[in-house]
């Protein structure tokens, strides 16, 4: 019992630290002051850190929601007998989404949709598809054959079988895919600031431009803490949701 208690404490400590820093960044100024030179401000002062963090989180969640919808939808489609022929095509598309660098996606997207949040959403959406798609695929394909046969044998329609048996059994893996996708994209989202999306990338870029290590560190640390806490939070949520799904 000692070990989980320690990690829980650590988790709450990290959350408290993050919230405190975002609400009252100036009280951390003495900590960051040694990293600045020539009297530069130790705490980012060209925008509200809290609203930047929330904007970034919002973008990431929106992109993840879209990725989930498309990736799970595709995963379901290609595991149906009628959609099996689309598996290679879907896999290629999703792989391209992952291998094409998000920065390049931004470069392509800006001329099409303009500056701001939209190109970032597109880049994150494409980047986040792969883990969700692959996990959905594995989740649906590893439902035991006997369970599927029993479901059909009991008289479930294809739809009832999907919603009542296949998706619930694949859910642990699907949620894990969403978690991976979210965490990867919290970090990746900082590049959105290069095309004027609101986010913590702004802080990092400002730091790079003015050689202010304190800014770079602030943007990076807040992003990192958000990723870790999101990962933990999702994991806890999964455990709670799936407590009843006990697979030997």
């Amino acid at each position, binding site marked *: 019992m000692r070990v989980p208690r320690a990690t829980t404490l650590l988790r709450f400590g990290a959350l408290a630290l993050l919230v405190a820093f975002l609400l009252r960044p100036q009280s951390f100024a003495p900590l960051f002051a040694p990293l600045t030179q020539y009297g530069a401000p130790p705490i980012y002062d060209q925008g509200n850190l809290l609203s930047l963090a929330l904007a970034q989180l919002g973008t990431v969640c929106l992109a993840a929601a879209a990725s989930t919808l498309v990736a799970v939808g595709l995963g379901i489609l290609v595991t149906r007998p009628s959609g099996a022929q689309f598996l290679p095509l879907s896999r290629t598309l999703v792989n391209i989404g992952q291998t094409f660098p998000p920065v390049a996606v931004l470069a392509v997207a800006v001329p099409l949709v303009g500056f701001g949040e939209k190109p970032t959403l597109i880049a994150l959406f494409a980047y986040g598809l792969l883990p969700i798609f692959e996990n959905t695929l594995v989740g649906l394909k590893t439902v035991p054959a006997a*369970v599927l046969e029993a479901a059909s044998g009991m008289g479930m329609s294809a739809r009832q079988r999907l919603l009542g048996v296949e998706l619930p059994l694949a859910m642990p893996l699907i949620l894990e895919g969403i978690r991976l996708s979210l965490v990867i994209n919290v970090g990746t989202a900082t590049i959105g600031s290069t095309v004027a999306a609101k986010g913590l990338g702004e802080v990092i870029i400002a730091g790079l431009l003015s050689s202010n290590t304190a800014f770079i560190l602030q943007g990076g640390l807040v992003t990192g803490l958000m990723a870790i806490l999101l990962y933990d939070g999702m994991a806890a949520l999964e455990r709670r949701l799936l407590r009843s799904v006990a697979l030997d």
Partner: protein
Amino acid sequence: MITVEKLTKRYGETTVVDEVSFTVERGSITVIVGTSGSGKSTLLRMINRLIEPSSGRVLLDGRDTRSEPAHLLRRRIGYVIQGYGLFPHRTVAENIATVPRLLGWDTARIEARVRELLTVFSLDPATYAHALPYQLSGGQQQRVGVARALAAEPVVLLMDEPFGALDPIIRAKAQDDLLDIQGRFGTTVVLVTHDMDEAFMLGDRVAVMSGGRLLQYDRPAELLVHPADPFVSRMTGLADRAMRLLSLVTAGEAALPGVAEGPAVAPTASLREVLSELVWSGADAARVVDADGTLRGRLTLADILARGAP
């Protein structure tokens, strides 16, 4: 009543089931036996249309099974498979309630039925209703599988090697339970197995399949006495056919009036068991005695031996 007419399944050039016809009487147990690849499972699955026949038809109480959508047909037919396929994310009670829920029964009726079935299958509802399948032993899972198949009071129960994964002691118990339950609910059962002993123990009639063809469909004793094909004799086994014949007759049926010294046997014991008892105890006659101690008659060695010859 199930009528199977010239049922055929072809995959390309290969014929897996070849013009099979037979009739299963209401309330009887038919066992389909055959080696692997004989087409027995395919035949079974064509009855509930998990596999669509290439030609031929199946009538359920005179009605063509193709006259309704397959998933609606299957809700009227119980189905038990090897490995049971219990839904791992649903409790025992939810598993059993599957078909009644699909049929839209009201909650009170479903609850009462689940409780009844759990009790019938000696699973205490208080302990097991909310258990998850992985918390059950193999034998308990098997019982839940059968309970689930029987939940919506199907007229027909199809079973594909339902006891294959059980150890011998639990299997014998499960087979006895099936006979009990079949007697209680009057369900028509079609069971697939590769185990001839199981076929002889459970089957009112046995269908022997080989290479997709139905070689013989008869009472178990007829398979022994009048095999229609050398393969049937090979399946039933020539070496111990007399013993198999004896195993089909109970002491109660064979008992003759009279009294005898010697061991007491139950009327439900098979002649094979009585013979074994006589050999073991060195006696030359047994008394057939009811559970309440009433003498039903006697069986001498000679009576028994006469029953073992065609």
